[in-house]
């Protein structure tokens, strides 16, 4: 038996689908430069065409054909040498489309393997977002935003080659910098990209994440029923009628909280979440009306509390809200939990006011979508500058 290498690329549909494909293709081609066979594929059960849905690509490489076949006998690898994450909000975990439960972002990363992420944040911010792992692993940060550059309508920001260059540093047995540069020249015919890969290679560093670090929560999971336990006729129970809410301070009940799908949560489908300023809310109902996912719980005092079990972060509520800065979409990396904002406001209005102020202080980061037309074009030079200067 030779050596088997597995790499996963975790991304968000649809904007990063081509980016992930380019990376996993280049991994196989670079390894092939050194005579290693390999296979690149996207996880078929994913729905990478859907905006924001977490999805995965895999590159499987081996030192010989038989070892590759051994690796491919299990279609989706059970562990990987490198996990690549091209959107740092995915650090909270992965819930694929029609793939139930919350999978920690480092779930497949081998003991001692490396998690490479593109992010503007530092390790101190990112590590607590990921679930704890029993064994230590390495974290390498490629500085940058969630890239959309794989999408053909947008200009290249070199994210793909910067990740490839980083890989050559952290796992030189898979492929060398020279091999990946050769592939870049053949595939993209772009010397500048080859240079970006080299710069990333030179700069790449990693930190060790210990088992004591990270989010200690047990990720959401549920037991799949046996065939004899499932209702027949491909019929599933409807979502029952909702119920009143209870004010945590007065005990007063009222309003309406819908029941929600008990097994399909949306903790990680969003890259942003609405922050609601209850002090300025005029109770116009527009967020509640327009939300496509029935996210807003109606509180006993007639306010609208965005429930984070159901929100996929589309931003419609912010768009329809007639009050300035009453609903503001904020990048998901800014939040450590999914707790009710309304309850926090009820319990401590002054504290909540300053929390809102802090959360919405900086213009929110780009996410799986743009906040204004042309935003991406404005950001490409910035990304290229990072690629050049670090």
């Amino acid at each position: 038996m030779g050596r088997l290498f597995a790499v996963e690329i975790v991304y968000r549909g649809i904007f990063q689908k081509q980016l992930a494909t380019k990376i996993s293709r280049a991994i196989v081609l670079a390894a092939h430069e050194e005579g290693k066979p390999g296979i690149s594929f996207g996880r078929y059960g994913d729905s990478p065409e859907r905006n924001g849905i977490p999805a995965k690509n895999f590159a499987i490489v081996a030192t010989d054909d038989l070892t590759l076949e051994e690796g491919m006998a299990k279609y989706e690898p059970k562990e990987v040498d490198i996990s690549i994450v091209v959107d740092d909000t995915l650090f909270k975990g992965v819930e694929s489309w029609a793939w139930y439960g919350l999978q920690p972002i480092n779930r497949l990363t081998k003991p001692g393997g490396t998690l490479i992420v593109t992010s503007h944040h530092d390790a101190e911010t990112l590590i607590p977002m990921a679930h704890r792992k029993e064994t230590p692993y390495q974290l390498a940060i490629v500085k940058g935003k969630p890239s959309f550059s794989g999408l053909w309508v947008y200009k290249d920001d070199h994210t793909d080659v910067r990740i490839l260059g980083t890989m050559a540093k952290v796992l030189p047995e898979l492929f060398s910098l020279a091999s990946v540069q050769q592939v870049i020249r053949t595939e993209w015919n772009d010397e500048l990209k080859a240079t970006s890969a080299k710069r990333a290679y030179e700069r790449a560093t990693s930190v060790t994440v210990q088992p004591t670090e990270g989010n200690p929560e047990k990720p959401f999971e549920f037991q799949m029923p046996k065939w004899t336990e499932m209702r027949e006729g491909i019929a599933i129970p409807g979502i029952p009628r909702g119920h009143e809410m209870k004010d945590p301070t007065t005990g007063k009940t009222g309003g309406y909280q819908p029941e929600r799908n008990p097994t399909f949560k949306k903790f990680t489908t969003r890259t942003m979440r609405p922050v609601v300023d209850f002090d300025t809310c005029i109770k116009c109902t527009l967020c509640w009306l327009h939300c496509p996912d029935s996210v807003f719980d109606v509180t006993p005092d007639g306010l609208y509390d965005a429930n984070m079990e159901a929100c996929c972060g589309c931003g419609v509520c912010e768009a329809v809200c007639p009050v300035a800065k009453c609903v503001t979409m904020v990048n998901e990396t800014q939040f450590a939990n999914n707790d009710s904002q309304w309850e926090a406001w009820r319990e401590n209005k002054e504290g909540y006011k300053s929390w809102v102020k802090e959360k919405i202080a900086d213009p929110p980061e780009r996410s799986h979508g743009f906040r204004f037309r042309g935003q991406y074009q404005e950001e490409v030079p910035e990304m290229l500058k990072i690629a050049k200067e670090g």
Partner: protein
Amino acid sequence: MTEALAPPPQTQPAADKTSLITGSEAIAVACKLADVDVITAYPIRPYDTVMQYVAKLVANGELDCEYIVAESEHSQFEIVKHASAVGARVFCGSSGVGWMYAFEALTVTPALRIPMVAMVGNRALDDPGAFGVEHNDALAVRDLGWQLVWVDNAQEALDTALIAYRVAEDRRIFLPCAISCDGAFLTHSQALVKVPSQEKVKAFLPRYDRGDLLLHPDNPITVAPQANEDWLMEIRRQTAAAMERSSSVIREAYADFERIFGRSYGNPFFEEYQTDDADVVLVGMGTLSTPVKVAIRQMRQEGKKVGFVRVRWFRPFAAQELAATLGRFKAVGVIDRDFSLGAPYHSGVLATEVRAAMYPAASRPPILGFICGLGGREVTVPDVKKMTDSVYLAAEGKTQPGTKWIGLRE
């Protein structure tokens, strides 16, 4: 003036009425007796005769149902699928390429556990646009969870339609059932049929109760959500389990049918004709039974001990029972009114299934396949004798089991 007294309550169920009706009309009468709620129609010969008879029953006020003429067979089958999901007893049907045009709807019906009863007026698939019988249309759904039954006369068509509702709507089953009626020979020939009383049918056929699968505001469920590989095998296994239960439910239904209607079909799954002392047998489905039986009677006068096994239920397939029966003979000839091009030994569908059923049997006589009577061509008495001669040769080890086309100009 005194008011007329109400007639005393009837204690005896009304006697069967004898009617001269076609096989299609017999199916329509069964729909009336079963008090079907929703019927959809789209014309194609020979199935269209059923929709005409049903339309007549509705127009005459004899049948109270929603009668919907769809814009295609696909919609025709989709409409009844949905009607059945909300608790309606439904009937539908088609023929040949019409049935094929509905194929997507046909594939989803078993998995959704819809107890649809359909009539397939068996017709050759286009091209060429022949009207006559071939069994390939109905057989196309044989892998999908449809219960498939072939009948050979109008009486059996009527009776089997009632049995089909009873079996399909049994909570243990909830699978669709298609009744195959040979185009022309059965669908367009009038025969004397005993039409049972409504009381008897009521005693035989309980109300359709969809239970926890009823799509209704009081029972909020979502039907047919998207599901991937982490759910699909469990769903298929459930459908398979229902099909596995089907045989015993069919047996129960025939036993009750005999008790209530006083008419027996013997073994529900296949009919045996003069097999007790037979050396060799022919096997077939549908109306070719008539020339086969006549030929057997003639051949027996010549001293040839020939029998016939007419397969009724093709799905579920009574493999063990059929294998035990066929194992008694020296050779078996299977007549297929269908084709399965490129199949093992170039046989038709029935011969291939019979061979598969026989493989684990203790006694495995040689099996010959015959392709005969395609596109509505008659299966003649001389054809049957010719096939029997081949079967005898196989019994004597003088010919290799294979497939022969019979009644072909050559």
